[in-house]
């Protein structure tokens, strides 16, 4: 495992990623973030009771864009990982970020299947349960934490190879 990662890190592919491709991949990662988390925020806020006039089920199609943002970031994130895999694996911040993302995705899946996908899109407003509202609040907390952890990664992982802000 270690030698495979070392091979990746020393490959010309990783070098290319860290040079010209780097800002492009970062841009894709940021746009993906806006789609994934931005739309989940809208859904979570509605579950929490904001914009009550919208049937919760009417928001279900936004989940397609949420998953699009997720895959954009899973792919761009994997490429960023390949620049310096050993350091990422070694980073506590990185583990926290992945954990927050994992919990956030599980909540998104649960709310989607238990609430957004239930009934007719045009059905009158159904009120989320207390448990679902708690999950929505936890979802927002997870994504905020994932963003903060992601920002900190730029300092803990890239600072000494001269990449990052």
């Amino acid at each position, binding site marked *: 495992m270690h030698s495979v990662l070392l091979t990746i890190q020393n490959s010309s592919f990783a070098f290319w990623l860290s040079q010209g491709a780097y800002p492009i991949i970062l841009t894709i990662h*940021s746009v993906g973030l806006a789609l994934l988390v931005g739309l989940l925020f809208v859904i979570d806020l509605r579950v929490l009771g904001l914009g009550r006039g919208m049937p919760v089920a*009417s928001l279900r199609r936004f989940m397609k864009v949420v998953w699009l943002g997720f895959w954009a970031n899973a792919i761009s994130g994997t490429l960023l990982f390949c620049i310096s895999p050993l350091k990422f694996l070694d980073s506590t911040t990185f583990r926290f970020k992945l954990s927050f993302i994992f919990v956030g995705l599980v909540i998104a899946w649960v709310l989607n299947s238990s609430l957004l996908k239930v009934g007719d899109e045009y059905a009158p407003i159904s009120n989320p349960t207390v448990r679902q509202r708690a999950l929505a609040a936890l979802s927002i907390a997870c994504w905020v934490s994932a963003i903060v952890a992601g920002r900190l990664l730029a300092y803990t992982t890239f600072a000494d190879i001269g990449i990052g802000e």
Partner: protein
Amino acid sequence: MGDLLVTAVGAVDVIAQNVAGQVDPHPFVTFLHDTPIGAWVRASSWAFPFLESMHFLGMTLLIGIVGAIDLRVLGFARAVPLAPLHRLLPLAFVGFGINVITGIFFVCHNPASYLFNIAFRIKMLLILIAGLNALWFRLGVFLDIEAWGPGIEASRLAKVISALSILIWIAVITAGRYIGFT
């Protein structure tokens, strides 16, 4: 705004001369640099990552809500009534406010590295265009908000403006990401 532009353009010339080692930095650059804000960001090792995290959160809130409205107008998730979705807009302005404030902190931390940065200038111009585009939407096609109920299809003009909105905000993110690389 006009004054600021004149100042900024003037400052470019001064910087150009500066490279040749002739004069001091433009007073506006010095002024921003010497603000307590600038001093704080430079002195604290936590300030920059904290401000950046806030900047990304603000961006996500702003573009998430504006993007949801744009997608609905384009016909995606047509079951969504626009009036209650539009009521989330104050939160988008909260996101924008967070980003203006954190943005000012970034600039004061090292004014010359932003004001003379082409990616930064393009980003500011794009945000201005995004604002005008949103104003066009609100005053031009989105007058009777309550009329945009579930299933209602938007006019072609409304769709064009919404598509532009999404593209401009993606361009804003792109320009923002390139500030550190130009």
